[in-house]
């Protein structure tokens, strides 16, 4: 255990754990759009920048992303100093220009004093902030179906060759983790469409409720050795099944004892 000072308060932490984890544990709200615990820290959105210094740094201060800076003994951290807020405001101004129509970005930007971007709005912009969470989560899940394409300002997220991605199983995790909800998918009539690829959803044998896609279930069975019939029935019916089964056991034992 080491100790650091965050916003004037002494805080204990494990050496090497990332500052963002510590601040979150302490209940300090630092915006971070490209961070997700399921994947490695990335440092792309730069919103979680904090000011750090140490007693022996002669007043020198550094600005680092909390998601990617390991805790060290004696660090003195300011998460919302004037300069930090100014930097965050600058980054949010840039994001607001990039995604002028994203409610998530507008809300956060307004919170930091940017009700409207002061910069030139990017024409024909979608709401993607290029945090790459979708691609990183997809990689973490092991499907690696989508990736970033190109570089710089015209970088995008896309399936390979801009065709329906062969490795996608339709788990929609990419859409789920997207901070600006920009990846569209549709579940209609037992069919799921995402990345312009169509998938069959499993229908519960009992009630017909749709759960995950057949491709996803097959992948799980193959990779994690789960029996395929686990996916035949939906969770509602499974609970009912369980209660009835237990009921009959109790009834049987009652009969047996009486």
């Amino acid at each position: 255990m080491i100790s650091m000072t965050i916003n004037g308060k002494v805080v204990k932490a494990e050496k090497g754990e990332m500052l963002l984890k510590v601040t979150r544990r302490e209940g300090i709200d630092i915006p971070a759009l490209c961070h997700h615990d399921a994947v490695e820290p990335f440092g792309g959105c730069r919103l979680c920048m904090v000011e750090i210094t140490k007693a022996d740094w002669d007043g020198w201060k550094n600005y680092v992303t909390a998601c990617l800076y390991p805790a060290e003994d004696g660090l003195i951290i300011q998460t919302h100093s004037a300069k930090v807020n100014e930097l965050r405001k600058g980054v949010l101004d840039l994001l607001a220009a990039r995604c002028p129509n994203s409610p998530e970005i507008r809300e956060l930007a307004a919170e930091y004093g940017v009700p409207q971007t002061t910069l030139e709005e990017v024409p024909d912009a979608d709401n993607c902030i290029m945090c790459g969470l979708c691609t990183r989560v997809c990689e973490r899940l092991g499907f690696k179906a989508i990736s970033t394409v190109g570089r710089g300002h015209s970088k995008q997220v896309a399936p390979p060759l801009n065709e329906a991605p062969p490795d996608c199983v339709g788990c929609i995790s990419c859409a789920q983790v997207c901070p600006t909800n920009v990846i569209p998918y549709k579940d209609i009539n037992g069919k799921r469409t995402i990345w312009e690829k169509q998938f069959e959803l499993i229908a519960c044998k009992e009630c017909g409720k749709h759960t995950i896609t057949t491709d996803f279930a097959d992948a799980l069975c193959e990779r994690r050795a789960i029996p395929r019939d686990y996916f035949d029935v939906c969770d509602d019916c499974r609970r009912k099944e369980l209660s009835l089964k237990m009921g009959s056991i109790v009834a049987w034992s009652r009969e047996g004892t009486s």
Partner: protein
Amino acid sequence: MNHDLSKLSAIYDRYPRKPQSLIAVLQDIQKEYNFLPCEALKQTAEELNVPLSKVFSVSTFYNAFSLVPKGEKVIRICVGTTCHIRGAKQIQEQLEDELKIKAGQTTEDLQFSLEVVACVGACAMAPVVAVNERYHGNVTVGSCKKLLKKGKKG
């Protein structure tokens, strides 16, 4: 478009079949075919055991790769700092005018591709134009016409 993909296996044989070889393999494919055919990307993904998405990501990240066919002669206008201040822009406009394409494009007959390149490292001779791998220094608006004529002949 169908391409003769028979030369691919020879390229794969040059490198260990590992993901690390990806860039080198793609460079050789680019050199062989003048671009990266879709089918070649798919085959590369399989041969090197790299996800197709990563092959696509890499092949769009680096300047060296093109997913559309390039011309037989690639004219690269150096727009390095020195060339820029010595008038590379004029040369670019002149060539765009002559070839009736913009930088980054290829003529319809696939004879010429026009590209700009950040710096070819021959700054003392700025402005520089390279036709395939041959450099031409101190290019002027007049001399680039000659260059094209020479290029058209062969």
